[in-house]
């Protein structure tokens, strides 16, 4: 592989490493074990959402609903647990809610043929409405079963459960998307739906699957967020929407350039979280964070594009 190809495939990763080194030198405490573990824990929420979003993106569908679906799932879980339903059952219901939301998106997109951008915009608004309807805006707080809280706050040996969950999700997602028949068919569906259909792939089912995985990951994140914050509130996932999209798009400049890919989304999430952690440690004011985040995202994609001599990806 020549230098150009290395930059093409790993440019953004190298940019991330450069940021890491920069922060390790200049940001007090950044490279301490405790802080790095802290970063890893923080990245779990974002990366799971970003990986789910990536599955939808692989089939060429944009899922703009996952963040609000995540909030809705959290609120449902909170409501059930506060109504004395066992936490495990409540969590399963939360997952099912996420899966259902994904399937509804899939139905709207493949059967009713509503373009994903608008279908998920619509379900997103609806999920938000329902979350407020269930809560009246008031967060569910109170006593939570310690076993439930363990899901996000516990450790197994030295490793936080959050980090374990994230790693499992990462491995499953990578294998599923790159090493299985289903994964390559998701990709074929996204690359050229008509070609995939003519080659005998049930493209509808693949699209529904992609969106369902996105919904599922919203459900998983809802459980983790609720357990981590011991609270369930509407809009608690809202902030992640743009961040997860940014992570996935950043990821499209890595590994398999111009294509959505799980590993890229993961590294993208890592870069974003690392940056916001590092900026805090550097003492940057809050508004500087947004500005720097914007610059870094644009710059790393621009570098990839310059090397590719074409847009880093198209959507």
């Amino acid at each position, binding site marked *: 592989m020549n230098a150009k190809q290395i930059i093409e495939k790993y440019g953004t990763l190298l940019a991330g490493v450069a940021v890491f080194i920069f922060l390790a030198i200049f940001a007090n405490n950044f490279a301490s074990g405790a802080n790095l573990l802290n970063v890893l824990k923080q990245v779990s929420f974002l990366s799971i959402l970003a990986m789910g979003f990536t599955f939808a993106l692989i089939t060429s569908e944009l899922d703009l609903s996952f963040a609000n679906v995540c909030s809705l799932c959290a609120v449902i879980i909170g409501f059930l647990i506060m109504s004395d339903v066992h936490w495990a059952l409540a969590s399963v219901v939360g997952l099912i809610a996420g899966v259902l939301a994904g399937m509804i998106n899939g139905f709207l997109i493949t059967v009713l043929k509503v373009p994903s951008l608008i279908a998920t915009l619509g379900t997103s608004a609806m999920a938000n409405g329902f979350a407020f309807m269930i809560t009246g805006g008031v*967060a569910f707080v109170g006593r939570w079963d310690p076993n439930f809280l363990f899901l996000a706050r516990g450790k197994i040996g030295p490793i936080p459960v959050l980090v374990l969950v994230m790693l499992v999700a990462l491995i499953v997602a990578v294998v599923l998307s790159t090493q299985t028949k289903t994964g390559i068919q998701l990709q074929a569906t996204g690359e050229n739906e008509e070609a995939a259909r003519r080659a005998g792939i049930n493209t509808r089912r693949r699209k529904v699957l992609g969106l369902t995985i996105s919904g599922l990951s919203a459900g998983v994140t809802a459980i983790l967020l609720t357990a981590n914050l011991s609270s369930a509130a509407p809009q608690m996932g809202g902030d992640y929407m743009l961040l997860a999209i940014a992570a996935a798009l950043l990821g499209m400049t890595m590994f398999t350039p111009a294509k959505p890919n799980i590993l890229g989304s993961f590294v993208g999430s890592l870069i974003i979280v690392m940056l916001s952690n590092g900026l805090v440690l550097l003492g940057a004011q809050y508004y500087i964070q947004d500005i720097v985040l914007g610059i870094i995202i644009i710059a790393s994609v621009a570098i990839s594009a310059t090397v590719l001599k074409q847009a880093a990806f198209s959507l």
Partner: protein
Amino acid sequence: FELGVVAFQMSSETHARCANAVEARATELGWEAQILNSNGALQTHAEQLDNLIQKGVDGLVVCMSKPVEADGQFEAAKAAGIPVISVMSGSSPHTLFDIQVNEYGVGADAALYLLGMINFRGNLLVQRFEANAGTRIRGKILDSVLSENTAVQIVGEHSMARTQSWREDVRNGMQALILQQTGNFDGVWASFDGQAFVIDDLLLAAGMSKGDVPLISIDGGEEAFRRIKDENSMMTATVSIPFEEMGTAAVDAMQAIAVEGVEKETLVPGPYMFMNAVLVDASNVDEFLSE
């Protein structure tokens, strides 16, 4: 002294006023103050606290924080020996204390004042905001005051459905209600002053002038006082919550406890440092206007 400041939502003016006052006072003391904005997101809030703890700040002031959700973070701060003072957040076993005005009392003051203005009889327009704890409490207090005073009815109410473009949301919703209820309302209640400013402009545009219907809200601040004083404004009264003073007090307390070594108990015996919220109307507005 390195002071970490986390505001839950800087786009909410009260959060910003509090955080900016903290920064200003800290700068006066020659401290380094770093403000973070959680954008209204609980997890972001928790993460920012974590990050500041990792940074090893010398003290933390949190504005409109969520002690239940950030419980773990406050505990970690305590374990790391970082003193935390919260403003308008609620108490936590892991923070020094919370600087508070009593939201319930504030809501009751405003509701009672409004009812007094219309002699406990008549129709109200109500502008709510349900996604925020403080404003929601004020609305609930209004409701319970009204439940005792059945001669006063809400004939139109609007609840903000948008949190960023909320000014347009209030304007649009209230405009529709004002048109619908023209001549049929005797008072207007808004859950915070920002809403009241928008409604004030609408009432003026509808051809009303000061005193036609009372417009009551809560929060206070320069603009609110100016409008109460201004003959060309409908704004009648507000309950002034001293956000700046609370911010300043937080820094001063931090200075006393963390720098000068004063015992927390001698400064604030219980979980709260209560501050007074004063009802401001034409009678006392001059005391509050800075010019």
